[in-house]
């Protein structure tokens, strides 16, 4: 039992070390790809970002709607229903926007990345590139990683904006909160540091979610079962990592 725990610990440390080296290799190659192969990155921004827009906007709208409802029903107990805009803005910009976007990104784009790369490996496409003297890390992994990193802050921003729109519809249009109070309170209470916190979080989550997706795909066992396990692991590990890192960043801002 003790030996098994020891081996598991060693295995974890080894994997974590390998993941860091992999991250470094992505970072080292990133500038060249951005400068010389921007077309590849743009294509991946489209795949990871543009194709995730619908799910992000729909979820953002309903999360904002729920915030409008919850905010109104709870704040009205203290006659503070005019603050529902502030409540929604704080929740969305600082927490829900970046976190839910990262979780949705892991489910939509992360799984797509991991399974695509895993299948490329299983069908020898990555080996074929190696044999054509084309580095798959530069040609396949770096553009996909960058695509995710670039997309995430924009997706989180769109999520928050649509969420505010959802909160506005529910609180102002349906529940009768004064629109002037809704926006004015938000404007006077929100600080630029609150927005920065959200931007930093979404950027870090973008790095984490994209890194884990390409890592899991690249290291997938090249079989149908291996690829499916890598895809599942991408979602699970990203969700855990995002929530832990969210706590750490939030703590550092307080």
């Amino acid at each position, binding site marked *: 039992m003790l030996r098994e725990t020891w081996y598991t610990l060693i295995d974890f440390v080894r994997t974590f070390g390998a993941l860091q080296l992999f991250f470094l290799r992505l970072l080292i190659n990133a500038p060249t790809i951005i400068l010389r192969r921007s077309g590849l990155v743009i294509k991946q921004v489209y795949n990871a970002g543009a194709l995730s827009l619908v799910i992000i906007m729909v979820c953002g709208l309903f999360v904002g709607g729920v915030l409008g409802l919850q905010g109104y029903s709870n704040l009205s107990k203290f006659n503070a229903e005019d603050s529902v805009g502030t409540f929604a803005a704080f929740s969305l910009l600082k927490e829900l926007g970046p976190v839910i976007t990262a979780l949705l990104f892991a489910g939509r784009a992360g799984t797509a990345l991991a399974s695509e790369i895993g299948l490329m490996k299983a069908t*020898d496409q990555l*080996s074929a590139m190696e044999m*054509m*003297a084309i580095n798959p890390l530069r040609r396949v992994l770096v553009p996909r990683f960058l695509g995710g990193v670039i997309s995430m802050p924009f997706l989180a921003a769109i999520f928050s904006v649509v969420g505010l729109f959802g909160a506005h519809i529910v609180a102002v249009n349906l529940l009768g909160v004064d629109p002037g109070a809704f926006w004015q309170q938000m404007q006077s209470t929100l600080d630029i540091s609150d927005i920065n916190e959200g931007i930093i979080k979404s950027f870090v989550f973008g790095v984490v979610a994209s890194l884990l997706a390409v890592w899991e795909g690249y290291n997938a066992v090249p079989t149908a079962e291996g690829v499916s396990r890598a895809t599942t692991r991408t979602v699970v590990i990203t969700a855990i990592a995002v929530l832990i890192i969210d706590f750490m960043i939030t703590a550092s801002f307080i």
Partner: protein
Amino acid sequence: MIDSSKGLIEIRDLDYSRGHREIFKGLNISIERGKVTAIMGPSGTGKTTLLRLITRQLVPDNGTILVDGIDIAKLNQRDLYKLRRRFGMLFQNGALLTDINVFENVAFPLREHTRLPNRLIRHVVLTKLHAVGLRGAADMMPAELSGGMARRVALARAMVMDPDILIYDEPFVGLDPISMGVIVRLVRRMNDALGISSILVSHDVQEIATVSDCSYLISDGKVAASGSPDELSNTSSELVRQFMHGMADGPVAFHFAAPNYAEQLLGRDVE
């Protein structure tokens, strides 16, 4: 036996294991320049593994692999990629990139390694596709191709950079007789006309006899026999005769190691 002292590719005392299973034990092979060399052997002898070792997709446990006198184990990534530009490899399953069409698959190495104008790339790609009979399939996606067609496209891609060494992993599997005949002739003609060297892994004894200059038969991690197709056909070695003539009985067992059949059916092996 072929003299393995000098050649384009020299494999010396190669050992390679996967897990606890020894694939090669002291393997020695010499691939001669300008020749078509066939690597044959029963299933599971590590023929594809050998190709991956030659191209350093895998690293041997012991022994050396020299390509043009260069020990490939000592190359850094830049030099390895430089060397690999001299190789063209046809994978067993084709390994076409599934998100781009046939034309772009063949053009892929040209676009990555050269700055040729599109017109010239189009010309080269169509020439190579015409050689494998698939010029008409240029706009098709890999998912729309049959296994044999995919392998022919992969062959066009393997030769698009005009390599010095062409490596074929099971090139004849899944081809209809007409395509098979064309590809066999193409392999031979390219080798002779372009002065390249070819390494061919295959089970198809008849086709290998037609196309190869010399063959190595690998069994049990070593070279069991080598020579020209005629020499192998007329050998007295039981193993070679069994393989060349496809006989069920002989030194190579058809069945993988297993407990006694009757005992297992009666469930006594688990008692």
